[in-house]
């Protein structure tokens, strides 16, 4: 039992770090391009066009999202890798992935041949991108469940330790 617990815990760490790396990478390709031996900041308009292709939001909202979302993804990626604020980071990641996936499914069903916007420009929505994002969401939900379960266990053990003893 102790061995299987250990394995589950290690698997959870691997899953969390992998998810963090994927998020950090997704943010990196939206924000930067490495050419001529240095890092260039990519224009936000590229990601704005990818968001706009879903035809859901007004232009102002698209602009705000395009300017902020990649940095938020980067922060989530770093938090997941570092294992900090885990309940917040994993829940936010799951929520984001659920939104992304539902929008992609909607576009796919509507037959829109648009850029997915997941890992930079040039990737058209297909069953492969849906499968990939679906797997990421499943992994993220597991990490989230693990983070909340661990939090509960820790709280319960703290409650036991501080329980007032009757004289």
């Amino acid at each position: 039992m102790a061995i299987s617990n250990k394995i589950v815990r290690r698997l959870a760490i691997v899953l969390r770090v992998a998810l963090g790396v994927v998020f950090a990478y997704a943010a990196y390709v939206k924000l930067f391009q490495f050419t001529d031996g240095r890092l260039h900041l990519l224009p936000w308009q590229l990601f704005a066009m990818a968001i706009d292709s879903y035809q859901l939001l007004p232009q102002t909202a698209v602009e705000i999202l395009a300017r902020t979302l990649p940095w938020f993804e980067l922060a989530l990626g770093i938090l997941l890798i570092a294992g900090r604020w885990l309940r917040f980071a994993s829940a936010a990641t799951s929520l984001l992935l659920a939104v992304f996936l539902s929008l992609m499914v909607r576009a796919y069903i509507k037959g829109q041949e648009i850029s997915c916007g997941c890992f930079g420009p040039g990737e058209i929505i297909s069953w492969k991108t849906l499968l990939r994002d679906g797997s990421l969401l499943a992994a993220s939900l597991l990490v989230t469940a693990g983070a909340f379960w661990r939090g509960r266990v820790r709280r319960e053990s703290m409650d036991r330790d501080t329980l007032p003893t009757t004289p």
Partner: protein
Amino acid sequence: MKAMLFVACLAAVCLAAPPDADKGKILGTPSAPIRLDVYSDFECPACKNFHEQMLPLIVRDYVMPGKVAVVNHEFPLNIPEHKYSREAAAYATAAARLDIYQPVADVLFRQQSTWMFTGRVWETVATVLTPEQQKHVQALVKDPSVLAEVSRDVDAGNREPVRATPTIILSYGSQHFPIPWPVNYNFLRSLLNGYLK
């Protein structure tokens, strides 16, 4: 040794330079600060949309003032529905050698819904050519170098990589990236203005 070095340098310069025929497919000044490489297929409806709706705006706002150069590339998709794409690309490439790429591209896109079903590509192209030009284009389209040029465009697209048509690649200095499709002109304008400021 020096002669060999000179030949090697010359070969490198020649290989790096765009092929001569490509000059006919460039809109605007080749030395413009921003370059947009457009990979399209004459049978693709989205390419028609780009050519007829967006390209005229880019030409008016950026190509004419010398700020952007648009370089057209053939990327005939290898799918059963696009039976005449390569033939259309060959005619357009042949026309580019006579500096009449634009009128040929215009008519191919304008009449897309007709020739893509009838297969009457030449009849469509011929409507915008003089009898003299028709003779030249018909001779050029049989030239293996024209077909090789279409294949070179496809190879260049595959190297980018082009995953769908149209694909627009923006180059500014050392930066080089695809623009997500469909292109929102307001965002594209903001992007180009940001570089040109």
